[in-house]
């Protein structure tokens, strides 16, 4: 059975992307698999700035990371619940995962693992910042993905 992967992250989510993935899953009679990736790039970069530019010790940097990760996890759970409700309205079963790591790498890993037929992702709002920090962007996802990638808002 085909699998539509809806990828969301701390860098962005839009109901349009969820709607698109749900419709695609219905049309293709596919499973809907939702993942929310807690993007580690931003807290990592900020905490390393605190240490190397802000000259703060490990403790405040660790405190910051704990706070932001807790916040991101809460948002992940809330967003997945929102999408599950939306899928439920269309009588569509949805599987969900919360992952943590680098956005593109995590999507690619999961897409290969579940043999996704389509990846739907919203254009990340923090993409420019992320790219500025680590040189990653969605072009990499498009290039390396094992299936079609639909970027909403592009």
């Amino acid at each position, binding site marked *: 059975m085909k699998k539509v992967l809806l990828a969301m992250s701390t860098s962005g989510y839009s109901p349009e992307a969820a709607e698109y993935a749900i419709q695609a899953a219905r049309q293709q009679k596919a499973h809907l698999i939702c993942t929310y990736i807690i993007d580690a790039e931003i807290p990592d970069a900020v905490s390393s700035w605190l240490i190397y530019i802000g000259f703060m*010790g490990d403790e405040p940097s660790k405190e910051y990371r704990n706070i*932001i990760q807790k916040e991101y996890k809460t948002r992940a759970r809330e967003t997945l619940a929102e999408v599950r409700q939306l899928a439920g309205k269309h009588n569509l079963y949805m599987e969900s995962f919360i992952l943590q790591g680098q956005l593109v790498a995590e999507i690619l890993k999961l897409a290969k693992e579940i043999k996704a037929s389509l990846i739907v992702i919203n254009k990340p709002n923090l993409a420019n910042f992320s790219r500025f920090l680590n040189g990653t962007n969605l072009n990499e996802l498009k290039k390396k993905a094992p299936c079609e990638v639909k970027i909403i808002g592009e």
Partner: protein
Amino acid sequence: MKKIKKIILGIGIILALIILILPAPEGLSVQAKNVLAVFILCVSCWMTNVLPLSVTGLIAIVAIPLFRISDSKATFAYFGNSAVFFILGAFILATAMMKSGLSKRIAFLFLKRFDRGPRTLSFGILITSFLLAFLMPEHTVAALLFPIVLEIANSLNLKPLQSNLGKGLFLSLAWGTVIGGVATLLGGARNPLAIEMLYETYQLKITFLEWMITVVPLATVIMVIAYGLLQLLFPSERTSVAEAQQSLSRAVQAMGKMSRAEWKVAIIASITIFAWVFLNAHIEVAIIALLSAISLFIFNAVSWKDIEQYINWGIILMYGGAVTLGATLADVGAMDWVAGHLFNQMKFTHFTAVLMLSCLSKLLTEGISNVAAVATLLPLGFGFADSLGINPVIIVYVIAVQSGLAFCLPIGTPPNAIAFSAGYYRISDVIKGGIIMNVVALLVFILFFKYYWGLIGIDIN
């Protein structure tokens, strides 16, 4: 590493090697030529962050005696400058304020007074971060207030990227700390660094009080404009902040009465600040800072383990290296030569020179650490001052203050990055407001330079 960073680093290394290999041009000593090569290498490392800032500071300290620019005794002597010890003492005091919970209490008690509506709440966050950055490094203030603002946003159920109030609250946090950070010598370590570089180069001093008299009115005006701009750009979608009121009340109640440790830190901090402001003409700020740090240990208000956990000691290497490099550049006359050759062809008035240095500082600080911006631009600014006959004290204010005022990019300063990481606003939101704030800050600065500084006795010549 990003391509642009590789290019900058590559150009820096090649240029440094070429300068080292080529014979010294007329009017420039071999030592001056070699220190310029070291300067270019360090600047390219500071700009690209290819090495931690502190390790680049070490490069300066090693390269100066290695290339026979100055002997090792003189080089290491600069390393023990008073700015380093002032910053250390100030950081220890900030750690004690954080660890004892005093800074959090101050923040909550302040914010509690501004929880009547969305506008006052936004102003409360702006002024709390602004005033706390008078007392503590701006990065520490941003990290301290971040969970509080996040809690307020959550209690109000503000949606990230959608809520105007959410955008306004987090930008208030970022901008308040950034603006407050320029007002005293405690908000940003770049300020004492700039003062020390002035002293090592010209034997001129700026006291704690003189700095405040010069910069606090300017920072206050910019802060008020920032508040107005945030209200204009992000008008709140809510009329009540009752949930935030409850959340702040709960937090204040949970803190209970002031602990003994808080009292001890409060008393020592008050005496220290009093001494910095009123006794600096008689006692060096670094001595006061160290006395304060020693008192904190004597009265058991902080432990050495806390200090190790809260301070990155690399700061000593970064500041030591920057002051050593700046002072050596001045000693061997390298920057006078550069400024003479670069700027003599251009007809700069004092006003256009200040304007140009302000713009340069602003541009640089949006892309690199503001400490690195000061370490890079100040030696050049001093050379500029010498060739045009500008008072170098003016140059210190121009470069240190403008380098602190980075409003646009999250990469500019850690407070911007911390606030941005909450995910409540887009880059485009902050760029729109940030560009306006950068222009405003520049205009206000120019107005103060032209009409206020003369009144308080800062002569341009």
